[in-house]
């Protein structure tokens, strides 16, 4: 496969305003295939809004998003998911009444083929018919995905496998975060966006999560990471981008960014709450 694009994901001048506030202000970003870029910054810096713009949950007022060389600005989240972009959410958004298994199977939704024939117009009706009739191809696909889900859950050791049939609302906070990541992996993403995957986790759980992200990176997955825990960011990232008040104030390798006076000022100036939360979260 000839890859004509320079970077897997590339943002140019991405801007989003809410009323008088510019939440994301002219952000440029390039993420190469297999790379891991972290975005850090105080609370309210616009990190999650940036994620929403990349994943289609929100539309930019200006600027472009390109994925694999194609302009995907303003595409719906469904279409972006189908193109291989998966994300987790800052506050954790599992499907409370669905079992762990079903939660993760939803992650594989874009990969359904047998039951979702790509036929225009009557496709949805065929999907309904196939779901009711369940010919062997459909059953086999479902069975294969269930096995895959178990394999993904196995990556979390004994955290999730014993609870595979429990509804997600009954899980601990940390386990819900794990389910979210498992769900994202089930999509077989070409780009994974992780929004504070370790929020609310204790140090040992954080270490576990850090190990998992490192593993995913080693497997060649391209990752965009929002994270407050700087130690983890420094360990994992190829590059770090620092945002403040919607703007990119610094970019570079971790160590370089850490020493940047603008970054220190941003964190010390009004980011006390950010660091405070970082402490409490840790």
């Amino acid at each position, binding site marked *: 496969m000839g890859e004509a694009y320079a970077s897997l994901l590339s943002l140019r001048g991405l801007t989003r305003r809410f009323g008088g506030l510019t939440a994301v202000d002219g952000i440029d970003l390039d993420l190469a295939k297999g790379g891991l870029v972290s975005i850090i910054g105080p609370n309210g810096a616009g990190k999650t809004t940036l994620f929403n713009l990349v994943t289609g949950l929100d539309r930019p007022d200006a600027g472009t998003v390109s994925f694999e060389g194609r302009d995907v600005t303003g595409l719906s989240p469904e279409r972006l998911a189908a193109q291989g972009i998966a994300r987790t959410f800052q506050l954790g958004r599992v499907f409370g009444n*669905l079992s762990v298994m079903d*939660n993760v199977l*939803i992650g594989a*939704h874009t990969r359904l083929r047998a039951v979702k024939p790509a036929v225009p117009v009557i496709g*949805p009706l065929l999907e309904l018919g196939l779901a009711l009739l369940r010919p062997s191809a459909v059953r086999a696909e479902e069975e294969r995905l269930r096995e895959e889900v178990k394999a993904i859950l196995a990556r979390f050791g004994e955290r999730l496998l014993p609870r595979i049939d429990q509804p997600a609302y009954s899980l601990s906070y940390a386990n819900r975060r794990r389910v979210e990541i498992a769900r994202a992996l089930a999509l077989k993403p070409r780009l994974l966006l992780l929004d504070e995957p370790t929020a609310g986790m204790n140090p040992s759980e954080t270490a576990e999560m850090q190990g998992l992200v490192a593993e995913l990176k080693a497997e060649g997955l391209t990752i965009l990471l929002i994270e407050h825990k700087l130690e983890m960011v420094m360990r994992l990232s190829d590059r770090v981008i620092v945002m403040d008040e919607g703007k990119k104030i610094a970019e570079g390798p971790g160590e370089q960014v850490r020493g940047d006076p603008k970054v220190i000022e941003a964190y010390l100036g009004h980011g006390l709450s950010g660091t405070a939360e970082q402490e409490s979260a840790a």
Partner: protein
Amino acid sequence: MSSWLDYTINGLIVGNVYALVAVGLALIFGVSRLINFAQGSIYLVGAYIGWVAVVQLHTPLPLTIILVAVVAALVGLIIERFGLRPLQNSVRIAPLLATIGISFVLDQLVMLTFSPNPRALPSQLPDVRFQIGGGTIGPLDLLIAGVGITSALLLFVFLRYTKLGWAVRAASQDRDAAMQMGVDVNRVNQTVFGIAAALGGVSGLLVGMYYNQIDTAMSLQATLKGVVAEVVGGAGNVPGAVVGSLLLGLVESYGIAVFGTSYRNLFAFLLLVVVLVLRPNGLFASARQAPPEPLTGTFIAPSRPVRIPRWAFAVAVALFAILPLLPVSFYVLQTLINAWLLGMLALSLTLVAGTIGQVSLGHAALLAIGAYTSALLSLTLNLPVGLAIIAGGLMSAALGTILISPSFRLRGHYVSIATLAIGEIVSLVILNWESVTRGPIGISGIPPLSLFGYDLVDPKAVYWFSFVVMVVLALLQVRLLGSHLGRSFRAIRDDDIAARAYGLSLNRYKSLAFIFGGFAAGVSGGIAAHLYSYINHETFNTQQSILALTVVILGGLGNVVGALLGAVALVGLPEVFRIAAEYRILIYGIVLLLLVRFRPQGLLGTI
């Protein structure tokens, strides 16, 4: 041209009347994000208290108003304290249902106390008329306008400039944050309910005087128009509610001017649907404001459904299947036939309201579409009844889905309001589209149920027919829930944002749910048409929609067995309580309240 001035003035006068209810609704929505379906009942209570004061106690007008305001405020406080506060930490659908239950109870209490006969409520103001355009206005018009505008202004000042008002606004923006900052949210709620109820009571009094007529049916109409006006103006926006009311009045008046009187409500509900589709936050909300519903769905109760073993289900089906062979009366069979027909409707609603989370308050419209299609096809084209019923189901699936699709982008309570409006629109179109539906005359002489050329007229045959159809639909639905569609629907219900992020198209899956559910409801309507032999626009009314929703909640949202159990219970219990005829609706309301309070996940639990 002077007529247009008259239509405009008349529109404003009626809008004025709507505003009184809408302001109270807006205030409550502003703080508790709740559409108070009991507001019309408080309005009813106010009207009757006013009647007692004026006709029996002969109080002067200022005293009448104060008396009504105080009593209505007390009713409001009682509702808040005992009806809604216990539900604070419950699921978001609970308070909505509770207000519906409260309205049943209040309306029925008024009816039992004062009898359903309409009464005259004479105005206590001098009867002078001022000529404006081609018509006249009287002192009551001015008083109503005065009360409407003054209360909106006072509320505005109260919310802006007083400490309690600040607390109310804080609580409406972020309840948890307000609590952390020391706002006594309960006190805020009490204040708001007290004010809104006083306003509601006084508006009932004034409107009763305005028409010199009060009756127990005025409650639902007031709520409906108030809700439309409030949502048009932007739910929770007090000045918006006033403007929305005036706009509603104008649209109705111009609708009458252009198309005639029987189109009035059609325009009212079309206005609502158009506003909801184009500007879901109301006409006066800023364009890209965050939606007022919380992003993460806690609309339904998390629960572990009661597991019913397969054999128990099979035994129950077998028992009901052999029931006609036992010595049971045709009355019992007929009651159960009603239960099976309601069961099909409940299957449909539990799928769309429970499984995919679109709480529809207009589901009877799907029955009507199925019934009319089946009746007309069998009468005009001589289509065999069996095929006609299937065609009715398909038409209901197709047309119902298309009609309801504008509500797909809405959330939570807005879906309920939009579907309520769409249901009303369907019924009004049936009333007015005479060339096809025969309008109010209805369709008579619909052939009886038949299968392969044999008429099914024996109650036993009808029983088996409807039972088998229902069981087949239920089994299909169970199969659907076990497929990837079942989990996709439930994922959309639990969190539509996350679902979209994983490639689930809301339009596609909501459509599929309505197609499947529309078919079941259409089949139910079709069977009913052939069973009754006569239908008109009143046969499938809003009460059916609310009954179906109660069935679904009773059984547990999304729960197939629960829907059937709920249907048997809610058809059977009123029959059991026949002796207490006058108290049946009261009992029904109380049961709904207790259910919401103590088992919001339903008897068998949400799936």
